[in-house]
C-alpha cells in the first residue's frame, strides 16, 4: 500500500493550502492555477486508490453508501466520547485493509483540522464555564466542560471526515453515483450529477488553459484593479462558454435520441454477494450498538 505513495509523488493532502511557492509569487493567476491542478491531482490520486485491491474496494458500492450514512449518523448522535473514538479506530482499520496509506489518511484529516476546527475548539477550552481542569500561566484556566466540548468537536469532525474519505478513496465516482440510486434519488438527478462531474473536468481544463495563456502574456505584475478585471473577465467568458456548451450538448443528446427522458446508469451491474450481506449486517450491528452505547 505504500507503493502508491512511493511511486508517484508523495500524496499531497487535499487539505493543504496552495503550495508556498505559488504564494510567494503572489499572483492570482498562479494561485488559481495551483488550486486547479491541486483539484485534478486529488481526483487522480483517489481514483488510483479506488482501483487497488482491498477490503472496501471489494464491497458493493450500495453497501458502502448506506454504511457510511448510518455510521455518520451514529457519530453525529453519540453523547459518549469513547464511542466516537472507537468509531474513529474502525475507520483507521478499514483504511489499513483497503490500500489507503494510513499515515497519509491520518495526516490528511488532522492537518485539515487545525485550520478550521482547531481554531474554533481552542477558545472553547477556556471560555466554557465549568470546574477547573488545569491552571495555566497568565491566569488562563482550562475548564473540564471546555475540554470535553473541544474533544467532542475534534473527534466528531475528524471521524466524520475520515468516514466520508473512506467512501471516496475506495469507490470510483461512477460507482458512487450509481449507488445513489438506492437512496431513491430520481434518475434525472443522478444523470445530472454524472454530467456535472464530467463537465467539471472539462471546465477545469478550459479554465486552466485560460489562466495559462494569460500567464504567458503577462510580464511584470498586475495591479489589484487589473487583477480583479482579469478575474471578472475570465469568469464571464467561462460562463458564456458553459452556456454555449450546454446548448451544444443538448443538440448532441437530441441527435442521439434524447427526448427528455433521463435514464441513469443502471445498477444492474452490481450484485450483492455473500460478503456484501455480511458487511451490511456487521455495519448494522455496529451502528445500532454505537447509537445505543452513545446515549
Amino acid at each position, binding site marked *: 500500500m505504500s507503493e502508491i505513495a512511493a511511486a508517484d509523488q508523495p500524496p499531497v493532502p487535499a487539505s493543504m493550502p496552495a503550495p508556498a511557492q505559488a504564494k510567494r509569487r503572489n499572483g492570482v493567476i498562479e*494561485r488559481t492555477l495551483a488550486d486547479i491542478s491541486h483539484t485534478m491531482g486529488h481526483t487522480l490520486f483517489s481514483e488510483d486508490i479506488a482501483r487497488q485491491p482491498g477490503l472496501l474496494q471489494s464491497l458493493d458500492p450500495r453497501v458502502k453508501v448506506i454504511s457510511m450514512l448510518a455510521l455518520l449518523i451514529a457519530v453525529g448522535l453519540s453523547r459518549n466520547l469513547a464511542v466516537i473514538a472507537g468509531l474513529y479506530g474502525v475507520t483507521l482499520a478499514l483504511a489499513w485493509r483497503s490500500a489507503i496509506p494510513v499515515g497519509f489518511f491520518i495526516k490528511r484529516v488532522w492537518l485539515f483540522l487545525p485550520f478550521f476546527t482547531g481554531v474554533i475548539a481552542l477558545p472553547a477550552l477556556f471560555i466554557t464555564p465549568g470546574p477547573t481542569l488545569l491552571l495555566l500561566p497568565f491566569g488562563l484556566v482550562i475548564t473540564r466542560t471546555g475540554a470535553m*466540548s473541544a474533544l467532542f468537536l475534534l473527534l*466528531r469532525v475528524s471521524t*466524520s471526515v475520515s468516514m466520508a474519505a473512506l467512501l471516496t478513496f475506495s469507490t470510483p465516482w461512477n460507482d458512487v453515483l450509481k449507488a445513489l440510486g438506492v437512496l431513491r434519488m430520481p434518475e434525472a438527478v443522478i444523470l445530472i450529477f454524472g454530467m*456535472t462531474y464530467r463537465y467539471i473536468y472539462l471546465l477545469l481544463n478550459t479554465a486552466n488553459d485560460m489562466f495559462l495563456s494569460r500567464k504567458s502574456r503577462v510580464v511584470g505584475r498586475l495591479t489589484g484593479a487589473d487583477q480583479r478585471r482579469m478575474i471578472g473577465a475570465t469568469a464571464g467568458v467561462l460562463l458564456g462558454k458553459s452556456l454555449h456548451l450546454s446548448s451544444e450538448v*443538448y443538440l448532441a443528446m437530441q441527435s442521439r435520441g434524447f427526448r427528455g427522458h433521463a435514464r441513469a446508469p443502471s445498477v444492474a451491474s452490481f450484485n450483492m454477494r455473500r460478503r456484501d450481506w455480511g458487511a451490511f449486517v456487521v455495519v448494522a450491528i455496529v451502528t445500532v450498538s454505537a447509537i445505543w452505547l452513545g446515549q
Partner: protein
Amino acid sequence: MLNSPAHMHIPDGYLSPVTSLILFLLVLPFWYLGARRLSKRMNARNVPLIALMAAFSFIVMMFNVPLPGGTTGHAVAGALVAIILGPGVATIAISIALVIQAIFFGDGGILQIGANCFNMAVVLPYVAYGIYRLISINTPATSVRRVIGAAVGGWAGLSVAALAAAVEFGIQPLLWHTADGAPLYAPYPLSVAIPAMVIPHMLIASVIEGVIAAAVVLYLQRANVPMLELTQKPTAAVSATAPGRLRWLWIGLIALIIATPLGLLAPGTAWGEWGAGELANMGLGAVPQGMAALQGLWGAPLADYDIPALGNASLGYALSAVAGVALIVVLAFLFSRLLTGKRAQPAQRAQPADQE
C-alpha cells in the same frame, strides 16, 4: 478543502443531526421551486444546462479573487450565478456543486449538505438577487447601477448567509449538551458565534463575493450584454406594479425572522409588556386594579413563547416566532383574497434563464 471561504462549508460534527435534518427539510421547497422554474421553460434542455451551470459554479469557487490591500480569497459565487441566471437556477446549480464538494472533496459535511445548501444555495442567492434587483430595477443592462447592485447584493448575500450559519452554530449549545453542561456540537452561544462569524465575513469573504459578481457584470456590460438580460421577461416591462413595493416588505420580514434568535440575547422583557409579576419585581408597590382584573382573561396558546412539550425554552422561542409569522401571513393572505377577489397574485419574480 479547496481553501474555501473560511467557515462557510460546515463540516459534520458542528451541528446536531436534528438541526441538519430540519435545514435539509427547509431546503426541499427551494429545490422544488428551482426545478419547476427550470422545467417550465426548457424541459429537456435543462439537463445539460443545469449540469454545466453546476460545473461552472464549482470552478468559479476555485478562482482567487484579489481584494484591495492584497488579500485574496475564494468566492462562493452564489450571488454571481443568481444575478445572471436567477435565484431558482442558482439554488440548483450551487446545491449540486456543494454535494459534489461534500462527497468527493470532503469540503463540507455529508450530513450537513442540507445546512450548507440552505446557507449558500438558498439564503445567499435569494438575498443577493433581491438586492441586485432592488438597486438596478428598471435600468438598462449597461447601467452602472447594475454593477453597484451586483456588488452590494453579493456582499449582503454572503453576510446574511454567514449570519444564518452563525445562528445555526449558536443554537447548538443551547439545545444540546451533556449532563454537566459541556456542549456536544459547536460550542459557542449566539452572543459569541454571531460576531465571530459575521464580522470577518463582512470584512473579507462577503467583499470577495461582491467583487466577483460586480467584476463579471462589468465585463459582460462591455462584452456580452445579452447575458445580463437572461432573467428578464421577454415581454412587458418587469414589475410595473405593486410587487415592486411589496418586495421591500417581504425582504424586511424575512430579515426579521432570521434575526429572531437575537431576542434570546437580550436581557429583560419587552418594554411596556410587563405582567403583574414583573411589575412587582420592578418595585411597583401595587398592581393597577384594572390590570389585575384582566390578568387571567386570556391564556396564550404559547405562553412566554414556550412550547412546554419540547422541554426547551430556546427552541420553543424560535418555533413560536415561525408559527406566529406563518399565522400572520396566512391571515393576511386570506384577508387580501377577501378584499380583492381571486386575482392579485404577485407576478412571478424570477424567470428561468432563457437560453438563446
